[in-house]
């Protein structure tokens, strides 16, 4: 089979997506006009980073095809638990995040590839 061709429609869409990325990520600092966030919003924003991460992570761990997982035989749950346990054990010292990744994958991959969980 030959390689798929490149077409201008797709390249145009990709360029549009790049513009959307920059606009959304810069949304509130594109304009140079002076403007201040209300105080309550400033306080609220300190809770936003961890909320965003949890909102991305949790569905990836406990859902499959839009439904909650029904079986505990899921490599993701064990991998994530092992990773968190490692982080808590190390109390976040040194390269604890790297350790979380390595320990989590060391539990996840054998369950996933070996047992098909």
């Amino acid at each position, binding site marked *: 089979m030959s390689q798929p061709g490149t077409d201008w429609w797709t390249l145009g869409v990709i360029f549009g997506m790049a513009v959307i990325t920059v606009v*959304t990520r810069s949304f509130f*600092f594109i304009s140079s006009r002076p403007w201040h966030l209300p105080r309550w919003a400033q306080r609220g924003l300190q809770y936003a980073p961890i909320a965003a991460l949890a*909102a991305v992570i949790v*569905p990836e761990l406990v*859902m499959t095809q839009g439904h909650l997982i029904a079986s505990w035989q899921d490599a993701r749950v064990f*991998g994530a638990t092992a990773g968190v346990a490692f982080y808590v054990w190390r109390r976040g010292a040194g390269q604890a*995040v790297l350790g979380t990744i390595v320990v989590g994958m060391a539990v996840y991959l054998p369950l*996933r590839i070996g047992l098909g969980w």
Partner: protein
Amino acid sequence: MTVRLGSSLSALLRHPEFRTGVQEVSGVAPGLAAWGLMTGVAMVNSGMSVVEAVAMTLLVFAGSSQLAGIPLIAAGAPVWVILATSFCVNLRFVVFSAHLRSYLMHLPRPARLLAGYLCADMTYVLFVRRFPHPSLEPAQRQAELAYFAGSSGLNWVSWQAASLLGIALAQWIPSAWGLGFAGILALIGVTCSLASSPMRRVSAGVAGAAAVAAFALPYKLNIVVAIAVAVALCLLLESPAPSDRRAAE
């Protein structure tokens, strides 16, 4: 002009905070790289040509928005649907940009837009973890900028290298291995490092539950809903600061 830009860039690279930024991202880079690798594989497996896949990784540089857009492009969906999806998946960055505004407004607009392009989830989270409050002093601002340059620079390079590798090796890496899970583990590690106060743990718990409950919403809007619910609840639960109460009266 070029000389001034060059010298200010080399001052940033020599700043000790540049190295700190590089070091802090290096801990999460393997997870992000595995995620980038799988994004590269996904692009090629969806039927994109190598040129298109390379253009997408270099220009769009947004994992979640790319993964959402790939099947739509493959299906030939209307352009506005693809762009609207991309916008909605990126809505959390609009929240982040409100947060980053006070750190960045002293820069000229092209530099701010470059910072916006480079600002992925991880770079934003690590940045506000290291600098909880924006500074008005030039020396401290330079430190913030150097840290951002180091962390976002390494983040960009490792994501792009892994993504390009994924594009090159797409045929040999089955997605069944689940290597992308390393990216989730990297996010989990950073979440643990942010969970430094009881209210933040509440925020994480509420957002996680809300994201599952609202999962049926289109365009990954469940993430934005989850952030809004968690932040609103934390604001209600925390005791209001005295200055706020006075302002409200």
